[in-house]
C-alpha cells in the first residue's frame, strides 16, 4: 500500500486526493516512513516529520471544507537545505551555519507552502551548493539509490544531491533544487529524474543562501516533466524583494504540455561533441535526436563556438561572487563562532574551521581573481567571455527553438572518485554550465541507462523565459524514452 503511495507522481497523487482515494496525511506518513527507512542514503540534513504531519492535516482539513489549493495541496516534498525555512534549522550543509534557525521563510519555500505542499525535511547538498557529487557536505555524502554492477555506492551528483536522491528513492514526491552551474540538472541526470533550471530571474532568490548571485536559480526536481511544470508554476513569479527577479507573468506551464512538437526546430550544437566523450553518452544523445525527429521536429546543426570556454569562465565568475557572498559568515551574527585572541583571529578561526575544503578553495580563487592586479586578467576577461557565450546562444536561437545536448559527460561515478582532482570534478558540468552563464532555461530528462545500468540524462536548453517549449520538448523525450527503470530495491 505505502509503496503504491510513494511511487505516485504529483499529477497522480493530486487526482487521488481530489477523488478522495487518499489523504495528505496518508501520503505524508508513507513518505515519512520511506525517509526513515532510507536514512543510510543521508538524503536529509534535517527531518521535519511533525511539521509535515501537521501541514498534511491542515491540507486534509482544507480539502474537507472545499478549500483545496490546487494540484500541490497535500503533496509531500523535500526542501534543499539552501532555502531558509522559518523555525527550521538551515545549514547550507556547512559547519559555519551551525544552529542557524531563520526567523523568515524564503520566497520559493513560502510559495510552495502557500499552495499546500508538505515539507518532509531539509535535503542534503554540497556545502554552499559547491560541488557536483554531494561529497562536500559537512553532514556527510549522499548516496544515490542507484548502484552499478560493481555494487559500489554511487554519487547522486550535486549540488542538489539530497533532493535528487529523495525523489529517485521515492522518499519525496518532488524536491526543490538550486542550480548555479548544473546543480539541478546533473544530479537529476545521475538519479534518473527530471530537473528543471528555469530562466535566471524566473524564481525569486530571496531567502536562498547565496552561492553566486548572477547564476543561482531555484527549480523543481521531479519524477516527470508534467510534475516539473506543476511545481514550477508554484515556485515562479516576480518578487519585488529580489532586484534580479523578472517582472513577467507566470504561464500555466502544465498547459504548455500539448505533446505536439511538429515543426519544432531543435539545434544540435556541434561543439558539445567533446573529445573523449564516452560512446554511450554519444549514443544516448543520438537516440534523443531520433526521438524528437520521429515526433516531427526539425533537426538543425548549430555552432556555439565559445562552448569550451564556458567552464573556465564559470570557475572565475562563480568563485568571485561566492568569495564576496560568503564574507558575511564571520561568527558575529549567526552560526559558528570559534573564539580567538582578537577580532582577526576570531574571523580566521571561525572561517578556517567553518568552511570545508572545496568552499575554501573557491573562496580563495574568488578573492584572488578579484584582487588588485588580477581583476582584468581574470574577472573582467570572464565577464567578456560571458558576453560571447550569451551571443553564441542568441545567434543559435535565431535559427532554432531549443537545443538538445547530453546533461553530463558520464553516468554517476563511485563515491570517492575525482576527490583529489578538482578540475576533473568540475568537468561534470561542462554541458550544464553554458546555459547557466547565459541565464537560459534548461531541463534534464532521463534518456536511458548506461552499460552499467546507471541513468543518463538528456538536456534541453531554451530561449530566455521560454520554459514552455523546454517542457514540451522535454515531455516529448520522456514519452519516447519510456524510462521506467528503478534503482534496485526502490
Amino acid at each position: 500500500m505505502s509503496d503504491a503511495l510513494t511511487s505516485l507522481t504529483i499529477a497522480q497523487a493530486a487526482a487521488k486526493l481530489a477523488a478522495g482515494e487518499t489523504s495528505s496525511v496518508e501520503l505524508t506518513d508513507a513518505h515519512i516512513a520511506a525517509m526513515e527507512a532510507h536514512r543510510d542514503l543521508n538524503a536529509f540534513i534535517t527531518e521535519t516529520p511533525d511539521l509535515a504531519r501537521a501541514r498534511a492535516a491542515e491540507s486534509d482539513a482544507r480539502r474537507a471544507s472545499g478549500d483545496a489549493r490546487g494540484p500541490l495541496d497535500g503533496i509531500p516534498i523535500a526542501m534543499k537545505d539552501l532555502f531558509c525555512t522559518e523555525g527550521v534549522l538551515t545549514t547550507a550543509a556547512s559547519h559555519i551555519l551551525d544552529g542557524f534557525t531563520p526567523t523568515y521563510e524564503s520566497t520559493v519555500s513560502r510559495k510552495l507552502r502557500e499552495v499546500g505542499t508538505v515539507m518532509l525535511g531539509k535535503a542534503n547538498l554540497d556545502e554552499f551548493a559547491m560541488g557536483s557529487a554531494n561529497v562536500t557536505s559537512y553532514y556527510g555524502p549522499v548516496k544515490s539509490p542507484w548502484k552499478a554492477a560493481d555494487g559500489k555506492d554511487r554519487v547522486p551528483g550535486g549540488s542538489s544531491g539530497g533532493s535528487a536522491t529523495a525523489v529517485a528513492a521515492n522518499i519525496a514526491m518532488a524536491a526543490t533544487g538550486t542550480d548555479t552551474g548544473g546543480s539541478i540538472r546533473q544530479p537529476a541526470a545521475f538519479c534518473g529524474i527530471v530537473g528543471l533550471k528555469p530562466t535566471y530571474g524566473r524564481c525569486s532568490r530571496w531567502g536562498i543562501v547565496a552561492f553566486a548571485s548572477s547564476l543561482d536559480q531555484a527549480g523543481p526536481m521531479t519524477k516527470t516533466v508534467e510534475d516539473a511544470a506543476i511545481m514550477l508554476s508554484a515556485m515562479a513569479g516576480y518578487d519585488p524583494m529580489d532586484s534580479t527577479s523578472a517582472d513577467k507573468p507566470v504561464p500555466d506551464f502544465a498547459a504548455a504540455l500539448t505533446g505536439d512538437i511538429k515543426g519544432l526546430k531543435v539545434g544540435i550544437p556541434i561543439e558539445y561533441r567533446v573529445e573523449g566523450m564516452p560512446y554511450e553518452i554519444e549514443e544516448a544523445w543520438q537516440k534523443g535526436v531520433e526521438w524528437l525527429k520521429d515526433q516531427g521536429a526539425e533537426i538543425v546543426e548549430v555552432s556555439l563556438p565559445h562552448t569550451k570556454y564556458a567552464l573556465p569562465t564559470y570557475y572565475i565568475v562563480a568563485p568571485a561572487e561566492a568569495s564576496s557572498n560568503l564574507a558575511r559568515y564571520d561568527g558575529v551574527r549567526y552560526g559558528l563562532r570559534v573564539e580567538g585572541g582578537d577580532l582577526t583571529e576570531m574571523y580566521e578561526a571561525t572561517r578556517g574551521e567553518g568552511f570545508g575544503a572545496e568552499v575554501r578553495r573557491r573562496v580563495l580563487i574568488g578573492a584572488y581573481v578579484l584582487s588588485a592586479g588580477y581583476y582584468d586578467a581574470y574577472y573582467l576577461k570572464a565577464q567578456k567571455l560571458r558576453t560571447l557565450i550569451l551571443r553564441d546562444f542568441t545567434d543559435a536561437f535565431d535559427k532554432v527553438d531549443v537545443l538538445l545536448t547530453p546533461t553530463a559527460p558520464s553516468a554517476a561515478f563511485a563515491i570517492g572518485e575525482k576527490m583529489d582532482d578538482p578540475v576533473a570534478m568540475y568537468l561534470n558540468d561542462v554541458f550544464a554550465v553554458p546555459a547557466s552563464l547565459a541565464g537560459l532555461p534548461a531541463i534534464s530528462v532521463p534518456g536511458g541507462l548506461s552499460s552499467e545500468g546507471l541513468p543518463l540524462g538528456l538536456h534541453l536548453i531554451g530561449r530566455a523565459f521560454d520554459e514552455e517549449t523546454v517542457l514540451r520538448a522535454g515531455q516529448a523525450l520522456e514519452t519516447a524514452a519510456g524510462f521506467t527503470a528503478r534503482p534496485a530495491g526502490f
Partner: protein
Amino acid sequence: MTYLIQGDDGDWEVVIGLEVHAQIVSNSKLFSGASTAFGGAPNSHVSLVDAAMPGMLPVVNRVCVEQAVRTGLGLNAKINLHSVFERKNYFYPDLPFGYQISQFQHPIVGEGVVTLDMPDGSVREIGIERLHMEQDAGKSMHDQDPKRTFVDLNRAGVALMEIVSKPDLRSPEEVGAYLRKLRSILRYLGTCDGNMEQGSLRCDANVSVRPKGSTELRTRCEIKNVNSVRFVMQAIEFEAERQVDIYDAGDTVDQETRLYDATTGETRSMRSKEEAHDYRYFPDPDLLPIDLSQEYVDKIRAALPELPDAKKLRFIDDYGIAPDDAGVLVAEQETAAFFEAVADGRDAKLAANWVIHELFAVLNKSGLDIDESPVSAESLGKLVGLIADNTISGRIAKDVFEIMVAEGGDPEAIVEEKGLKQITDTGAIEGEVDKIIAENPGQVEAYQGGNEKLIGWFVGQVMKATGGKANPKMVNELLRKKLS
C-alpha cells in the same frame, strides 16, 4: 590672500582635496525598509537585510537615487544616466555583509563645480570630481565591556553620498568656506540636513604640501572623520605644518590615514588601518545597473529650488543690498526666506541691517535658530516699516525691538501704547530747541566761536528733553539754523 607655510628654505603651498560623506535625507535605508531616524534603541532600526542574514537581498530606495541626482544638479555636475553599484570587500564588525555596497567605476554623478566667495572678495571655483551613493556602516562601541566590542547596526545601510572634490583647495579658510557652501547647497536642496555633530555630514581631508610655485603633487595623508568645520581647518593647519617639518628635516611623508585629536589639536597615525587594503571591487550581482532617462533628470532639474548663488545675485540686483550682506542672508534658506518676508514692500537695506545685526545678535545670544526666532518676520517687517515712514526713530526702534524680544507683541501697538511716536511737529521741537539755546549761552558762544562739534551735544540735549522721540534730523536742522 595666499596661504603659505614658511619652511626652512622657502614657502610651501598646501594642496587639499575633500571627501565629504553626506547622509541622504530619506525615511528608509538605501537598500531596506528600516528607518533612518537617529536615536533609536540599539539594533532596532535594523532589518534582516541590514543584518546580512543569509539569502537577504538589497532593493534600492527610489528617493535616495533621486536625492543623489538632485545633489548632482545642485553642484552643477554631470549626471551619469548609467551607473552601477559595486561591492567594496573588507571585514569589519560594523559591516555585516563583509562588503559595502558603493559605486566605483560608474558613479551616478560626475564632474561639477562649487563657487566660493572668499572674505577678501575673490571668487574661487572648486572642482567636484564625482558623487556616488553608498551604505553607511554600523557603530562599534569599544567602551561597554572590558573584553568585547559591542555592535549596533542602526546606522548600517543608511544612504550616504560621497562627494569628492578635486585637489583644488589651498588653505584651511578655503576648506571652511567650501564645507559651509556645500552644506548650504545640500540644505537648500533638502538632500542632507548637514548636521556635523550628529554625523550626517562627515569629512575626510587629503592633505599634501609642495614648494610654492611647484605644480607637483606630493604624497598625501588622509585625515579621517573630523566632525566640525573648525576642527577640519585646525587639522589641516596642523597636518600641513607637520609635513613641511618632515621635508625640512630631509625626510619623506608616508602615505597614511591619520586621525585628528580635537583635544590636542594634532593628527596621529591610525595604526590599525595601515595594513594594505585590497577592496576587490566588482559590480554587485544582486543589483542591476541604474539607468535613468534624460526626462527623469530634467524633471528633477525643473523642480530645483533657487540655490544660494542665484539667490545672492537676486538679492544684490533686486534689493540693492551689499554682496557681503547678501552672502550672509542666503547661507541658510530659512534666513533668506525670513529676510524676504521682512523686506516685502519695505526698505530692503534697512530690513537686511535689522536681520543681520539686531536679530542675529539676539539669536546668537540665546542660541536659537531663525525658525525659533522670538520675533516673527511679520513683526520685524512692521518695525522696519515704522522706521522707514518716520513714525519712530532708529533709536526708539531698538527699544521697541527689545520689548518685542522680551515680551512679544506687535510693534505698532507697542509704539502706540507707550507713546513712542516720533515728534515731527516743528513747533513742538522748536520750543525745546529755543529752550536749550536760552539755557546754555556758554555752549552757544563756543559753537559760534567755531567749535562745530558741539552740535552733537545740542542734539543730545533736545533728544533727552523729548524722551528720544524728536525726529533727530529735524532737531539737527533747526539747531543749525538757529545757532548760525
